């Protein structure tokens, strides 16, 4: 169960093929009312019923937070993934009814910042779109550096460049254009905050250079939605409910617990917010921690697990659920 917030009953209003890999979906409320205003960088959890498999995946809201007539997300098709993006790309069409969580923000801008320096890679552009819309309305100062494989795959680049001109710079891999990160990081006035969203490697690179160049951790922000990885099936004993379940290869531990009808709290479903943290009562094997929440010590101790993204390999895993 989510922590008590109401859900949003929506209908798909529009599906747009943005480029070869990305589709944009627009949702409106089924009862025609306004959707809640949200803060730039927020995401919603989209519930999907993929032929019996219940998925709940987080996607950043890319639409203008002040536009309460609809929410928009952009989804990059991942052929090697668990199927959430494939389901959306192949099966979701205008008119379909779906359910969204209320917006949750794990990637807000820092309201005190004198300047917001944004670095986006690929589909990581999406949270910045809603942040830029909000900042523009408040006349906040921002600068976006957007890296993409090619002009065709640089979703929304045309619109960003047209609207924000000098505040946006585009770097295309197929033209050998690379962000001069060190130069960028050296020249920022005190009070700048740095935000990065994109592939794991890009985030690690930006964080690493920022640290080496003396940026304080409190001024560096990133968001990376961990998709629950695909893996080998494994069995789990749920001690509190007296059940034993099997987690399928393309099913997360959290999804398997839910499929068994056992209540488990969750929020972001992406390994970042801590809400689904579960006690491990017995572990004979290896917990594959894939989250950003537990500390290294906690991961080594194997007494806690984040079922939304983590898996297990071995003989026995007993959880306090």
């Amino acid at each position: 169960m989510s922590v008590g917030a109401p859900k949003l009953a929506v209908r798909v209003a529009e599906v747009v093929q943005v480029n070869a890999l990305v589709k944009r979906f627009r949702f409106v409320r089924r009862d025609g009312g306004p959707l809640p205003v949200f803060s730039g960088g927020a995401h919603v959890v989209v519930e999907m019923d993929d032929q019996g498999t219940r998925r709940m995946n987080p996607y950043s809201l890319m639409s203008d937070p002040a536009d309460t007539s609809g929410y928009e997300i952009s989804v990059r098709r991942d052929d090697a993934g668990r199927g959430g993006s494939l389901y959306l790309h192949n099966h979701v069409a205008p008119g379909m009814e779906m359910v969204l969580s209320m917006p949750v923000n794990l990637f807000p801008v820092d309201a005190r910042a004198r300047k917001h320096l944004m670095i986006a890679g690929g589909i990581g552009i999406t949270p910045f779109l809603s942040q830029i819309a909000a900042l523009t309305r408040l006349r906040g100062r921002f600068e976006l550096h957007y890296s993409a494989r090619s002009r065709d795959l640089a979703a929304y680049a045309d619109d960003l460049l047209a609207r924000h001109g000098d505040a946006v710079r585009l770097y295309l891999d197929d033209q050998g254009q690379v962000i001069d990160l060190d130069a960028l990081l050296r020249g920022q006035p005190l009070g700048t905050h740095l935000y990065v969203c994109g592939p794991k490697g890009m985030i690690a690179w930006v964080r690493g250079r920022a640290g080496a160049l003396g940026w304080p951790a409190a001024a560096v922000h990133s968001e990376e939605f961990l998709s629950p990885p695909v893996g080998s099936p494994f069995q789990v004993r749920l001690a509190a409910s007296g059940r034993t379940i099997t987690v399928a290869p393309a099913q997360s531990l959290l999804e398997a617990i839910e499929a068994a009808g056992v209540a488990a709290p969750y929020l972001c479903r992406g390994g970042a917010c801590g809400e689904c943290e579960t006690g491990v009562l017995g572990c004979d094997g290896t917990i594959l921690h894939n989250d950003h929440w537990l500390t290294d010590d906690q991961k080594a101790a194997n007494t806690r697990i984040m079922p939304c993204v983590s898996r297990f390999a071995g003989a026995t895993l007993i959880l306090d659920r």
Partner: protein
Amino acid sequence: MSLDFNDETFRGDFTFRNSARAIARFPFPFPEDGYMYSVNMEPHLPGKPGSVFEHMFDVDEHYVAEMRDRALVLAEDPLRCQSLPHMTLAGWDLLELIMDAKARDYPQWFSLTKEGNRWHWVNRPLQIEQSFTFLDDTTLPCGPMEYITRQTQGDFTLQDQRDDNLWIEAGMVTTQADWSLDFDIGMSFHEWHAPVPLAHEMRVFDRALKFLLNLQLGAPVRRFNWTMTVDPLLDTSPENYPRWGPTKTTMTPETIGHRQHLRVELQTLHRLPRSNAIVFPIRCYLIKFEELVTVPKWARRLHRVVRDIPDELATYKGFIRNKPLMLDYLSRYDDGLPTSPGIWPD
């Protein structure tokens, strides 16, 4: 002054009193015959009709008089209302939350019409009419948080969420139980709560913070806090402590029924949409001992709570000095019979 609202004072001649209706709906905070700290949060869903839980922001017979007292406190000490510059957006979120709620729940007293960003607000009890542009603070006489909280009962703090923590960075604090907004503004969650004894050892604040960091839009929560106050004085601030501190020493067995008040804070917590901040309204309700004991269950229970409370807590809550006098008074109403669970009168 209409029939709906009392003409009363919270200073000087202290004419504050509760009607029979106000006594019956008083938010008695003790569900059992003892008290210890807990996180004790529950969803702030619409509750029992007629009770203080029915609406998101409760408006009662003390509304007009409380707002008048607030204005006096602010005239004397403007530092009771402060907003660090980056919290203005959160102030707008709060203004929207309160105006929408009051216009919906009390249409006889408040109305709000919107044409895009042009809003028109009417507050009949305070005789205020204001047209303004939402998000443009040049169109209001003062900042949005100050504007709306001058018209809403209770104290308010706005907390920015960042670095896995909450930071108290704006507030309207004129009815507080002895803490200074001016001193505390800018502090983190644990720092602001630092002076509370015992609770830190019990990790109450660790659990509360973890819960609040994941507080969602559309899912507010509520809890109670309580203390004791001599005379129906709303402004028991540290700033004015040299003025109200001495009144504790003037209590007698003859005056305690009239002058000793149970002070209950109904605290709610709401996630705000544009700023992602959390607003923490702290709504103060006062009841005299002589009013409270007209409800037999509450009389018995309050006696037992005061009798058994650890001295450290009674000291922190500021009533250790008068605890013996309180017990003398309350024990007369405690016949030792069992009390029913829960807060409502029998």
